[in-house]
């Protein structure tokens, strides 16, 4: 009887391990995720001949397939909207997410090539491992210059960890846009903000 109980217990433990394993694999730790993606993208920039030749289509392709799946633009937009987010209708929210995403992708894809030869140094994750919002810290080292700290605000979602803010040298993207969004909403309402974002995106094309 006692051996049977031990066997059951062993089986139960095994079952838990087997069930939990895929979940653990899917939930790649946030710092490991950022490090892996950053290294992968840097490797592509260094070795892909089309990217090196400045092929815009290829660069956009790399961003769409490698970088963007790791961003949570819904959350990023909501954070940048602050308390205005709840005032927006679902339709407005959708438009805001689309336009904000387009603006960020277009403006920051130009900066991608600058990462080519930079040395990225990732710091160990601090804080509560059970938290759903963590900050992954990294540093870009440039010879003769003060290193630039790049932090990623990571949020836990159903499909793994996603970036919801990028903080470059202490300047949070979300915080910066919160002021801008607030100001646009004050003068033209949420629709005014959507219009400004849309015309900004049109002009950049």
């Amino acid at each position, binding site marked *: 009887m006692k051996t049977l109980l031990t066997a059951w217990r062993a089986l139960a433990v095994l079952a838990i391990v087997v069930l939990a394993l895929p979940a653990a694999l899917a939930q790649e730790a946030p710092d490991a995720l950022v490090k892996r993606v950053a290294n992968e993208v840097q490797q592509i920039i260094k070795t892909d001949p089309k990217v090196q030749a400045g092929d815009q289509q290829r660069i956009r392709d790399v961003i769409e397939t490698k970088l963007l799946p790791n961003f949570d633009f819904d959350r990023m937009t909501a954070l940048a909207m602050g308390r205005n987010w709840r005032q927006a209708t679902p339709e407005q929210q959708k438009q805001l997410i689309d336009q904000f995403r387009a603006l960020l992708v277009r403006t920051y894809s130009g900066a991608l090539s600058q990462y080519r030869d930079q040395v990225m140094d990732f710091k160990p994750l601090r804080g509560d491992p059970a938290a759903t919002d963590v900050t992954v810290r990294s540093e870009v080292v440039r010879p003769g210059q003060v290193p630039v700290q790049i932090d990623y605000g990571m949020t836990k979602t159903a499909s793994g960890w996603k970036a919801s803010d990028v903080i470059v040298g202490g300047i949070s993207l979300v915080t910066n846009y919160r*002021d801008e969004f607030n100001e646009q909403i004050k003068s033209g309402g949420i629709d005014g903000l959507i219009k400004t974002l849309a015309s900004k995106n049109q002009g950049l094309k």
Partner: protein
Amino acid sequence: MWQPSFSPALRRLLVLGSVVATLALSGCATTGGGRTDDPFEPVNRAMYAINDPIDKFVFKPIAQAYVDYVPSIIRTGINNYFNNIDDLFSAVNGLLQGKLDKAGNDMGRVMLNTFPGILGLIDVASDLGIPRGNEDFGQTFGYWGIPQGPYLFVPFFGPSTVRDGSGFVLRVLWSPTTEIRDVAVRNVIYGLGGLDIRAQALGTTSLISEASLDPYTFVRRAYLQRRQYLVYDGNPPPAKDDE
């Protein structure tokens, strides 16, 4: 024109006194709470509007030509020269904040770069892996608990605050460059300093025009975030969410 006949030491003391008075006033002006980052916004925006076309049509093209036509070895030397002076002030400010390891690094950097590095033109210290402390008077005032005061946009100088602007005044008046007796040489060095700063910022300003909805607001928030971050040596307390 009336020429002040104070000795340099007395002049510096007077400047220090007025800076202290300004900071004391800035402290009083910002105790109201709420959104008081930029109480002079209308004036600042006017200054921004004056600065923008001058920068676009004069300073930016000159800086771009400098980057395009002057060999990088010369530009690096010029940048190193000004960085060396920054390091000297960083050492002083590290001491004023009791950050002895930073101050020690900066002092070592200045020694190495001034003598073997020929007046700062060659950054010997970075090759040896000695990090830059990157401290300044504005950060020291912040570390001492003096509030940042109203945001200021100064034509030709860009974003600042009363606290940082006061620090900048001290920085300029106490700079070794002021000891150069030959006015022409001194002015050339000031000119090169401005050129160097503008050239360093070329990438940043093009990003601002692409990324921002209203460049004025974008620059203001980015500047204030950056300064807050520097005052806290990279670990600022979390910002109050207005959600």
